[in-house]
């Protein structure tokens, strides 16, 4: 499939922890057996709660988290990289093509650098431009694209609001002409009235330059509006992945269903309809056996506690990992 930009096969990311006392070293199984394909030019959404491993997956795709098992392959028109073995010059090249937008606009900008320097830094470090004039030109171009006031380039980050800082972060990510951008909870820390603005900016950038976005969020409604493909993660695994409209109209996994219903409705007359999931999210150090969701799933059976569900295709582009998705899908049917 030549229009897949990034592909993960059986990817696992484990973080070993300090051993407390004797016995086996505890391991945080942040990601386990991930299989996804992100198509070129798509706006791919990754949704999950805490402990789902979505941030780790995003970082692994940028080679900012170690790959313990499996592989990630980046294939563009001119190059193909296996992220596990990427180093040296090839790694530098990859860094130009894959960038990250952070969640916290207050921590993501170096407080002692001017905005111009912050945006220019990737250009200078990666040696993309050769003269100061060229750098300045490029900085101005990108700043204008992100609707930053050019006079503000002289200012320091403390002068800006959250939404403006996030736009500076976006500008910094765009300046090296990347092909792939991971937006890690990029609007979570912003006010609602600004969120929409930043989301629209990301969308317009995507339409204009065809950059592939991996949009990570815990907010399913935000993802639903911006992404054309969604993958749902729970405790380190992807439980369901489908084109957006299919995820909503043909929900197949009980967790997705619970997630959808837990979103508070804006209709005051529709109250108490949220499906309440009992229990807490288990720890990724000690995930439940079998299907990881079985401790909280309202439809759990004996089989779920012992057998790990297979990642299979229900319909075109729609994958799910659940033993009973066919029966449940009929039940869920909207």
């Amino acid at each position: 499939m030549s229009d897949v930009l990034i592909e993960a096969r059986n990817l696992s990311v484990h973080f070993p922890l300090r051993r407390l006392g004797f016995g086996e070293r505890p391991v945080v199984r942040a990601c386990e057996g991930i299989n996804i394909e992100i198509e070129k030019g798509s706006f791919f959404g990754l949704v999950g709660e805490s402990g789902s491993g979505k941030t780790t997956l995003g970082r692994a795709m940028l080679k900012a988290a170690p790959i313990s098992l499996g592989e990630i392959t980046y294939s563009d028109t001119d190059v193909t990289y296996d992220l596990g073995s990427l180093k040296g010059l090839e790694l530098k090249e990859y860094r130009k093509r894959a960038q990250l937008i952070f969640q916290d606009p207050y921590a993501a900008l170096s407080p002692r650098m001017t905005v111009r320097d912050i945006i220019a830094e990737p250009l200078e470090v990666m040696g993309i431009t050769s003269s100061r004039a060229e750098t300045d030109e490029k900085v101005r171009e990108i700043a204008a694209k992100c609707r930053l006031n050019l006079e503000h380039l002289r200012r320091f980050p403390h002068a800006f609001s959250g939404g403006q800082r996030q736009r500076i972060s976006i500008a910094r990510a765009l300046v090296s002409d990347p092909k792939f951008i991971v937006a890690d909870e990029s609007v979570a820390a912003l006010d609602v009235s600004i969120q929409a603005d930043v989301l629209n900016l990301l969308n317009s950038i995507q339409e204009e330059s065809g950059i592939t976005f991996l949009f990570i969020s815990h907010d399913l409604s935000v993802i639903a509006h911006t992404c054309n493909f969604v993958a749902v993660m729970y405790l380190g695994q992807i439980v369901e992945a489908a084109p957006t409209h299919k995820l909503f109209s043909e929900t197949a996994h009980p967790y997705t269903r619970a997630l959808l219903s837990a979103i508070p409705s804006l209709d005051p007359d529709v109250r108490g309809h949220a499906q309440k999931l009992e229990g807490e999210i288990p720890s990724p150090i000690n995930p439940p056996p079998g299907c990881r969701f079985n401790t909280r799933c309202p439809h759990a059976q004996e089989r779920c506690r012992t057998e790990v569900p297979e990642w299979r295709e229900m319909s075109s582009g729609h994958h799910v990992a659940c033993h009973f998705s066919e029966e449940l899908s009929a039940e869920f049917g909207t």
Partner: protein
Amino acid sequence: MTSPLISVKDLTLRFKTDEGLVTAVNNVSFDIAPGEVLGLVGESGSGKSVTAKALMMLNAENSVYDDNSHITLNLDGEDIEVLSLKRPQDQMIIRGGAISMIFQEPMASFAPAITIGDQMVEQLLIHSDMTPAQAKDISIEMLTRVGIPEPAQRFGQYAFEFSGGMRQRAMIAMALSTKPRLLIADEPTTALDVTIQAQVIELMKDLVDEFHMSILFITHDLGVIAQTVDRVAVMYLGNLVETGTVRQVINSPAHPYTRGLLNSLPKLDDLEAPLTPVPGDIPSPLDRPSGCVFHTRCVESGAIAEKCRTEIPVYSSDSANHQVACHLATQGEQS
């Protein structure tokens, strides 16, 4: 018509900073009736947290209250003027006594080196004269009530041994153990996962019924507001722009800011609709706009833009209980 539990009138609060006197809350008035859940909605810089803290006199030392600001707490027929309470003994009634508060970050609100149980007992011992044994019993009972499994065991554990949702429940248990009349909840579910959020909201609504207490629910999440509260007050840059029942404000919003907020939310029932943000940025509190505080971002002012820029709109009601501060809205009524 029962008198309100707490009545805030013309609350104006400024802070002394390096850059001068910054107005955080500007002429805010609202009432909370006993047993009512009032939602205070606003974004950053709206002043909602500062307003809530004023009810418990928790604001920093550099806060300056205006002389004609009044916060009146009505307890058993007796009126207490909160802003005039100066001595710590007097302030106890508003701090954990009749008014209790829960915060956004439960991890930051519990002392890390003291067990949860000890903290809960401490709260009870300060506000009542029960014995430590009695306090422990009541605390464990509260933990059970908020749905924490194995409460007796959890009583002796530390904050880091609890998960996020459970910590928030423990926080609610601690706040409610003194049986307050008013619970101030400052963004209690913002830091929680959405499935846990649903649980906590459900819990809070049950407790309102059971304890017959009022809640001042502060959040920026309109969905949570729609699901939880009876009445809503919308704040922008320190001003109250609209107040009404939740149905009035959400279904027929009268202020352009409220309309803008509702429009900018992604709605699950219409995935194709474009997201329309409220244009511009929230002005810095150092730079308060003249006239109507929202006029710099209002797209609906149209013909009367000049008036919006120069005149501060009066807070008026069009129908019972639905008040708004907007020239456009008042103009619409008159015509």
